[in-house]
């Protein structure tokens, strides 16, 4: 190495504190659908307190397959009244209510199923993790009365890893992505995220190739 070049390299190094460029290596801009559980550079998505030059790189929700239990429950609930109607001859002697009241009861029942679907979809849709070129935001919603929003800057991230335990998770390729932050700051977890390996690669790439 020439002497001049060696002199230039000696001394303290200051890590680049500038905002990281948006990584587009793992995917082009995508149109986000309401059922999308993972999107790279999603178009037409905004979030609260978004800075002017802040771009969303990743949008992560729980994998679509995790919705199967509540969808099945809703389908079963939808088919219960027609089944009861088939056995109405056995029930009628015990329950004597007018046809109008029966109609309102059935309407109320289906309205409650609609409410159930709306709540379950809301819980899935808003349990979202956002990775931008500046920070990571984690929005947790569990129940309609509880929401928790946390965020951390990319330069505070120490480590990113994922775990994929169980046959279902392996077959459908989803798992938990753990983002560890410096010191006493809270860690982040993208619960049951699809393609966890790719998410880890994108975040690791953004925090400066620590992995």
């Amino acid at each position: 190495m020439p002497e001049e070049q060696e002199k230039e390299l000696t001394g303290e190094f200051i890590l680049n504190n500038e905002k990281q460029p948006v990584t587009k290596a793992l995917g082009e801009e995508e149109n986000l659908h309401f059922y999308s559980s993972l999107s790279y550079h999603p178009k037409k998505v905004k979030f609260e307190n978004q800075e002017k030059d802040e771009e969303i790189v990743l949008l992560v929700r729980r994998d679509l397959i995790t919705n199967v239990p509540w969808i099945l429950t809703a389908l079963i609930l939808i088919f219960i009244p027609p089944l009861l109607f088939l056995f109405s001859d056995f029930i009628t002697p015990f329950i004597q209510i007018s046809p109008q009241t029966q109609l309102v009861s059935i309407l109320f029942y289906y309205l409650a199923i609609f409410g159930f679907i709306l709540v379950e979809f809301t819980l899935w849709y808003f349990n979202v993790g956002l990775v931008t070129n500046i920070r990571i935001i984690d929005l947790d919603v569990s129940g309609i009365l509880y929401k928790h929003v946390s965020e951390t800057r990319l330069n505070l991230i120490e480590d990113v890893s994922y775990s994929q335990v169980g046959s279902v998770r392996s077959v459908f390729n989803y798992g938990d992505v753990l983002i560890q932050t410096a010191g006493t700051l809270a860690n982040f977890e993208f619960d049951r995220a699809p393609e966890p390996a790719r998410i880890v690669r994108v975040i690791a790439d953004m925090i400066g190739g620590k992995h």
Partner: protein
Amino acid sequence: MELFQFLIQLFSNQDLLFRIILIILISFYILFALILAMQIRNLNRIVNQITFSPIFKLLSFIHLGAAIALLIFTVLFL
């Protein structure tokens, strides 16, 4: 004594009892639908998916409207 008579009448008339229970349940349900609609509106402010958020909010308000309409129908027409 009048209250006692009323209760006997109430329990002997299944239809009336059923309507009263329905009105109470729907009233509570409206409260739930209102909270749900407000939460969906608030959460859509945090994460706004421009193409879908308005539809989502509309669905939650349709849900609330349907619950109110059902209560009005039950009280006025049954």
